[in-house]
């Protein structure tokens, strides 16, 4: 795209996008680390994740302020307006991802004190890797403005949902087998739910990227896995 006539305006817009990309990198790392800390029962890593979450909160605030400032002082129009609003919305989705990663880390700290759950843990780890890669894909789509890549994350959300469904059943069976596993089982269920939510945020971001690039919304109905029964 052609450059703005006003260079400082161009720089502010680029700065905003760069900050969102930076925040995306951080959120991505938090989620990936949370999955690792959970799978490897790595207490030190889990504690670090909890500590690092404040950085995401601070970045969200910074991006929001920069976007509001840009709207007030530059009155962005058309693609610039969409870009500014997208930055703000993506930042808030990333902040939520960070919270969910932090929650996984906290639960990992608790789970590290209990007996390993074996195959269920590995299923959750696989789901975690899948969700991490979705988040990475959508953030790559954002930084490179690739519409197809964003749409592809959006259409593939059902895989994450299906994963969650089967984990849900697996965990119920696990808890029914031995009531002593209910406490760790409940934590594991929340870990899986958090991952599913992170997948939803990745899908939200895909929708925002689509709007930023095209100015059009994706249809209301996205492909959906089966509902909870």
């Amino acid at each position, binding site marked *: 795209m*052609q450059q703005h*006539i006003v260079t400082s305006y161009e720089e502010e817009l680029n700065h905003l996008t760069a900050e969102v990309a930076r925040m995306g990198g951080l959120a991505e790392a938090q989620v990936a680390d949370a999955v690792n800390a959970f799978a490897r029962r790595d207490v030190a890593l889990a504690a670090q994740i909890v500590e690092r979450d404040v950085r995401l909160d601070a970045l969200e605030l910074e991006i929001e302020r920069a976007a509001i400032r840009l709207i007030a002082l530059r009155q962005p129009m058309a693609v610039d307006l969409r870009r500014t609003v997208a930055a703000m919305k993506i930042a808030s989705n990333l902040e939520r991802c960070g919270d969910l990663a932090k929650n996984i880390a906290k639960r990992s700290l608790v789970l590290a004190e209990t007996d390993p759950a074996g195959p269920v843990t590995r299923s959750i780890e696989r789901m975690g890797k899948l969700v991490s890669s979705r988040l990475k894909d959508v953030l790559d789509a954002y930084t490179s403005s690739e519409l197809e890549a964003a749409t592809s994350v959006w259409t593939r959300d059902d895989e994450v949902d299906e994963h969650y469904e089967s984990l849900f059943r697996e965990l119920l069976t696990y808890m029914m087998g031995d009531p002593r596993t209910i406490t760790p089982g409940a934590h594991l269920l929340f870990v899986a739910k958090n991952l599913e939510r992170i997948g939803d945020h990745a899908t939200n971001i895909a929708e925002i990227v689509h709007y930023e690039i095209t100015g059009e919304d994706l249809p209301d109905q996205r492909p959906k896995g089966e509902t909870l029964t």
Partner: protein
Amino acid sequence: MAAEGNPLPHDTQLRPPAVAAHTPVANAGVKIHCQGVSAFYGDKQALHDISIDIPDRAVTAFIGPSGCGKSTFLRCINRMNDTIPGARVTGRIEIDGEDVNARSVDPVVLRSRVGMVFQKPNPFPKSIFENVAYGPRIHGLANGKAELEAIVEASLKKAGLWDEVSDRLHQSGSSLSGGQQQRLVIARAIAVQPRVILMDEPCSALDPIATARIEELIDELRRQYCIVIVTHSMAQAARVSQRTAFFHLGQLVEQGSTEDIFTNPREKRTQDYITGRFG
């Protein structure tokens, strides 16, 4: 089917809700229909084959860089270009289905039907009252003094100026502030019961408060009139208009609802212009 003992009187039931008095004016129909309009100043072609339908009871904004033809096009609508030597307009412009360039149309009558407000307020060097009364008087719209006074009062009220000038109607129009003068000129245009009001950068000489007053006035007037405004201020076009047309190099590049033009324009040239990327 009504259950017995229903507490509601029979005739209040199952009746469609009354139609609101202020129904939206979105579908008020086409006021100005333009088909294949081209304009020339001598050998130079200033407008290329412009076709656009301008709705009634709505504000349509013309935007575009200087020299893009938006003002020329505006001036075609009330045949102001007739007064420029060497200017020539082809194509068809209809107001309410009537060809404005037809031989039978008297440009003086046309211009009373199509009021115009310019960048710089241009009150006549007469009293406030006379500025507004002049048009209705020469067009014979008032029978007697009382009726004329009523028209002046109504016009000044519609223009949002009455409260500020009612006690000094016989002072000179040029004694008013710039923003007041602009509203006086709008009152003068309204006084002859126009069908269309054209505005060529009506706020570019005004401060933000006076601008806001004019914009508020435009929003009031659009309930009754077809308004076309040429503006260099993107923000103003976005604020006051419902439809926007973008001109560039004498061509109409894109037209659409103002919301679409400013959030998601279809044409790259429009996008580059409104976002400040024009090379």
